[in-house]
């Protein structure tokens, strides 16, 4: 087991990529904290799935865009488990529209969850990781944060921000043996991409060299690599999991 006894907080872990990471980490022996904001039922299912197969898991409700709530969540984790070894910033939302039609509130909300949410958890978790003198932080960016995308100015800006935040945090915490990396998934089949119409899906797949969509498991495998000892000499990097879509 690659993560035996490690305490891992995964934000937005009730479904999709976050859920896949939670299940993968639990299989590798981690104590998994499933953070969710809206869907208590799905989060509970993830917890039950892990606990029934002999893993250790619990869920915590918290909107990552709210700093005070994030601080409480992480303080509670420390109180109970006495450590936080792995932080996966996966919680993310989309509110797509063309810039001309995008509400300012929708721009703010996406930045608040996707980018400020990452900052909030890193700020709170890093003080413990610094004391421990080890830690792995994995931030979920997106290929859209590298290329930009019409209709996703808010999402693209938030995900580009995540990359810059990742690199800054990597530099700040390197001396304390804390690795900070980002994953940039491409077209992954989840609830977030389910809403696209068939024509758009086909067009996207046509542009992917590997000619297929990815699945959450593909991203979870990369997250596991970045969370375990095998990646100890890697920090400040963005790993694309996109079938070659962006290179």
């Amino acid at each position, binding site marked *: 087991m690659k993560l035996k006894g490690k305490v891992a907080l995964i934000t937005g872990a009730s479904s999709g990529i976050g859920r896949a990471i939670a299940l993968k980490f639990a299989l590798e022996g981690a104590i998994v904290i499933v953070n969710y904001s809206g869907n208590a039922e799905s989060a509970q299912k993830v917890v039950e799935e892990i606990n029934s197969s002999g893993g250790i898991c619990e869920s915590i409700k918290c909107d990552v865009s709210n700093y005070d709530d994030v601080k409480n969540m992480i303080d509670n984790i420390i109180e109970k488990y006495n450590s936080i070894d792995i932080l996966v910033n996966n919680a993310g939302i989309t509110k797509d529209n063309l810039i001309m039609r995008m509400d300012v509130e929708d721009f703010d909300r996406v930045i608040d969850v996707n980018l400020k949410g990452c900052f909030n958890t890193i700020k709170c978790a890093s*003080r413990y990781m610094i004391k421990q003198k080890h830690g792995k932080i994995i931030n979920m960016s997106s290929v859209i944060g590298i290329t930009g995308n019409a209709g996703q100015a808010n999402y693209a800006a938030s995900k580009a921000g995540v990359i810059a935040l990742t690199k800054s945090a990597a530099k*700040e*915490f390197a*001396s*304390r043996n804390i690795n900070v990396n980002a994953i940039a998934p491409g077209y992954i089949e989840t609830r977030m991409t389910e809403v696209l119409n068939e024509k758009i899906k086909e067009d996207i797949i046509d542009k992917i060299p590997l000619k297929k969509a990815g699945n959450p498991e593909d991203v979870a495998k990369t997250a596991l690599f970045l969370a375990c000892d095998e990646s100890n000499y890697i920090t400040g990097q963005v790993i694309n999991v996109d079938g070659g879509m962006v290179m």
Partner: protein
Amino acid sequence: MIFEKVKERISDILGVDSDDITMDSSFIDDLGADSLDIVELIMALEEEFDIEIPDEDAERIQTVGDVVDYIKEHTDM
């Protein structure tokens, strides 16, 4: 008394021999601290003495004596 406690925490965090820590020691020049060490130290001292050291005060702290004086001023010890 405050000095002894402060010395202990500095020694823990910076990994320096407590005999090498004097009131005149500069964190950066004499004790080899970096900016993250100082943040960590301030947080540890806030916990130890149950005080809050605002960033603008923390920025002025350069020597061990600065910290000891600050704690004396802001606690009943």
